[in-house]
């Protein structure tokens, strides 16, 4: 008959417990996001109402509802997205990516950032970033390489990359 493994032996075999314990006890708590999580975060971000994350959105563009543009996804899909909203989105994403207490996971924030710039470039012919064209192409390429990138953003980023 097989004896049950003593608990202290089981404990020793489990490194996940120690790894997570170390992070919480040293105040280095952070979620470890898998690709599945990142895909879920980006989907959720794209489905989030603009007004939720950009409180000034309606003040800048009172006609938002009339245009059926309520979420970030709607904004990136619009034929004529308001420039102010794209700029606001870009600034929000940039701030989120560099903020120590990040309101967004960094890579998700960067995808949002480049999507806002790509939308301005492809729909309005605007350059919302001071980065060089080569840098932007590399950035779009980086975003397209993310395995968790939302399918809805692929055509936009491909077009922007040229």
């Amino acid at each position, binding site marked *: 008959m097989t*004896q049950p493994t*003593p*608990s*202290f032996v089981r*404990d*020793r075999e*489990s490194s*996940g*417990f*120690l790894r*997570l*314990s*170390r992070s*919480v*006890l*040293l*105040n280095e*708590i952070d*979620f*470890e*996001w*898998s690709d*599945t*999580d*990142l895909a*879920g*975060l980006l*989907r*959720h*971000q794209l489905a*989030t109402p603009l007004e*939720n*994350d950009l409180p000034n959105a309606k003040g800048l563009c009172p006609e938002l509802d009339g245009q059926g543009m309520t979420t970030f996804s709607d904004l990136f899909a619009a034929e004529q997205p308001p420039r102010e909203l794209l700029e606001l989105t870009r600034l929000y994403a940039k701030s*989120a990516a560099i903020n120590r*207490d*990040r*309101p*967004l*996971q960094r890579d*998700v924030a960067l995808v949002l950032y480049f999507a806002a710039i790509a939308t301005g470039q492809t729909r309005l012919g605007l350059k919302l970033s001071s980065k060089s064209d080569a840098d932007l192409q590399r950035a779009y390429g980086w975003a397209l390489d993310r395995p968790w990138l939302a399918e809805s953003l692929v055509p936009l980023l491909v077009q922007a990359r040229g």
Partner: protein
Amino acid sequence: MTGTIILNPPHPAAMRTRLRPAQRLGQGPVVVRARPGTGVTPTSRKPMSQNRGSMPETRLSLVEAMANPSPEVRQAGLERFANDYQSGIRAYIAACLARSAGRADPDKIDEVVQQFILNRVLKNNLFDGFDPEKGSLRARILQMLKWEMGKSFRTRKVDRQRQSLGEDQSLDDFAEPAVDEAERAFNRAFLRQVIEQVAARMREEFETKNKPEVWLIFERRLLRPILDEAEPPAYDEAFVAECGLKSPAEAAARLVTAKRAFARHKNDVLREAGASPGGEMQEVIELLNALG
């Protein structure tokens, strides 16, 4: 023995625990947190709701409670001792006993745990001369365990050598302590206990503040995976719905709030369990280093 504690604690006159003046003054209500399965019942804890608007709840550290003149407070201190350290003591002893037998008999473990608590905690007061400034209570208990188990081994080895009448199977119960393994088992059990206590306090705090959602996301994504040693649930539509999240930014905001609360409660729990005041992070580092 598991889950049953204990018995007339010694009077502080018999104890020479060195406390700083501020600690001697801290004779507020003792809070004893019960852990499921320990059989320990909270004694004098008030619900948080009763404390709203008044002074913050004061919790004596274990060392302060054991130096208190009130028998009730010392009894509560012992219950707290059981809450904080009994699982670690048991894990240490189980590891020592299992080394020779391959598997430790639960009754034998309980018996040795009982002996240790009677001999070391009650008779030869564990807290006697203890100075939290010189090291944590956890380290002291570990030192006592090493000594006690080493002594048991040596005594029985000598007895065995004196007997020339062949093998006595009962003497095989004790093997020389496998120090690293037993120490890890003790520290690991203590670590788990700390995290469980912090989790319980966080949950209570956010439920009292009517912000259960802060607790929920922290518990689902981080604490439960630690305690269950399992993968966290994916951040998907079901998770978003369960936690009532409006956006990823809201999830992050809740996390930040929860992280700060965790750090605060963690320091409280460690200090109350015998880390020196202000030395909580040092205790964490020593604990993690000991675990490798």
